[in-house]
């Protein structure tokens, strides 16, 4: 999942980026509204965390610009003042949820995950595709009720596919979303990881949860 952090305070920005990275996100970070607006418009962002008290171009304007350009990725705002006026202004501009500063990272993470889940059309934190169950809060995967051990990258790959269940996801999209910007991109790696994931989820090759659509990408069906 590719996440944009728009925060002017360097310490907070670095902390957030670091914590999200550890939680399996690919991070783009921006220090001001102009930079953030550009990143949101130009990069394949899945979700953005925006501080409203930005200098120069405000976070509100960046959100408005994204929405005006037809960007639908969910936006979580961080408000310093716990007032409804600020929350309403942010949500009205096109944000989807808010967290009040100071916050605990777990809360921000939970909100971001909920936003991603909802934007994928899931109303519950437990994603279920046939026999495969993915708990976004506990970051656990079960197949037919039995826990499956996945590496961090495998988990991110599966989560991405399941959040977009029913949709075809191309290899290039997966590389873009799951690797940092400056990583060397090699679509063969994705094939390797998909192969490993298939073996772990379906050792007997019975459910075949991940479909390959030749030349187009991969798909997980909801049922």
């Amino acid at each position, binding site marked *: 999942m590719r996440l944009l952090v728009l925060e002017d305070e360097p310490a907070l920005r670095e902390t957030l980026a670091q914590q999200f990275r550890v939680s399996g996100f690919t991070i783009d970070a921006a220090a001001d509204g102009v930079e953030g607006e550009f990143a949101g418009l130009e990069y394949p962002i899945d979700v953005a965390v925006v501080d409203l008290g930005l200098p120069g171009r405000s976070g509100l304007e960046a959100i408005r610009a994204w929405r005006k350009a037809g960007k639908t990725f969910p936006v979580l705002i961080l408000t310093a003042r716990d*007032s409804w006026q600020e929350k*309403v202004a942010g949500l009205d501009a096109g944000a989807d949820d808010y967290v009040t500063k*100071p916050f605990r990272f777990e809360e921000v993470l939970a909100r971001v995950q909920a936003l991603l889940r909802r934007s994928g059309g899931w109303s519950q934190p437990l994603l279920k595709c046939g026999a495969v169950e993915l708990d976004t809060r506990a970051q656990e995967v079960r197949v037919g009720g039995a826990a499956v051990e996945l590496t961090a990258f495998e988990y991110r790959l599966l989560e991405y596919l399941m959040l977009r269940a029913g949709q075809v996801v191309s290899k290039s999209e997966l590389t873009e979303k799951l690797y940092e910007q400056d990583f060397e991109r090699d679509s063969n790696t994705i094939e390797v990881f998909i192969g490993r994931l298939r073996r772990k989820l379906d050792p007997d090759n019975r459910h075949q949860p991940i479909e390959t659509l030749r030349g187009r990408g991969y798909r997980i069906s909801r049922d």
Partner: protein
Amino acid sequence: MAPSAPSLQSRLLLTLAVLLLVAAAAAAWALDALYRNLGLRALEDVLDAQVIALISTAEIEFAGQLVPQNLAEPRLATPGSGLYAEIVGSQGTWRSPSAVGSGLNLAAEPLPGERRIEHAKLADGTRVLGLSLGVRWDPAEGKSRDFVIRAAQSLEPWYQQVLRVRTGLVTGFILLALLLLGGLAIALRVSLGPLRRLETEIVDIEAGRRESLGTGWPRELSGVTGNLNALLIGERKRLERYRTTLGNLAHSLKTPLAALRGLIERGESDPQALTPQLERMQSIVQHQLKRAVFGGSGATLIDLGVQEPLEQLRSALQKVYADKPIKATIAVAPGTAYPIDAGDFLELAGNLMDNACKYCRSSLAVRATPWTAAEWRRPGLVLEVEDDGSGIPPAERAHVLERGVRADESVAGQGIGLSVAREIAAAYSGTLEIGESRLGGARLCIRLPGR
């Protein structure tokens, strides 16, 4: 301090004084001119009469000279009487005894039938008004002759009278102007009295001798004084609130600070041990900030239409509670508006609606209606928020509203919203009541009085 502008009273008096002087001078000049015109006209009439009297008694004597046979006017016979006459013909000149040696020299030579008026001077400098009439004498026998009959009258007594009238006019008008100015000064003092009283009372308020403006102001000022009082009361409430907030803040930070100090003195090496105290301090700061943000009532507030902010809140809350399908209805009576700070209203309604979203099962209803009373010029506002949750038991209602009033007994995120809403309502002299809803859950009702 910038130099103060001239007072209203001196401005008005100065302007009026100039206006009065100009008006008085113009009136005096016009009256004077009128009087002189009329006076000269009257003098001309007198001279006409004299000339006609001379003609009526005049006859041509042997030398061909026209001479009045008797002088009906005794002044003509008295030298230096101020009334003079002469008849000038081709054969000589007749002069009244009064004109002898006076140096009368009227210059006009009118043709027969012509009449001329002129101003002249006698030898001794006396100013006279002269009338010359040309006549053609047609006797029964002999040929006709032309004469000029002249009469003149000294203007000196008249000039003296004009001067007297002028002096009278000028003194009269000056007295009148002074009287009017005095009257105006008194009128101004009386009508500007309330303003001076206002000034004194404001000085008293600044000096702390008085809390608010008194009552009994004239209609023109009652709006201003009413608003000033509202502003003063609002400011005082705000100050009290800040004071309480600061006190609470300082007081409630003491405990975690003491705990931190204790940890350090004990030589605590695990940074995690500090976390509970840090979180506590964080929640205290957040809590007190939330209380300090709202603006409170004041005289400067304009009417806020409530429909739009309520709808904004609904769409914002529907995003926040996206996992919970909530049906929220908003009913605003047409024209419902209340003078409240937009941020305060959002905070007030936002807390109530957030609370309702949190505790409802699936629906909530918001209703805003004006609150009218006979003694209010502007109506108040009733805002009701109902939900279909499990409601708030009567025993807990008072506690819910008091919750978090003292920072050190609050827990972050634990329903401080309602007590904040109650405090905002109180800042507008309003109330928050908790009751039961027809929907089955709680009914929260804010009542903000009108003015």
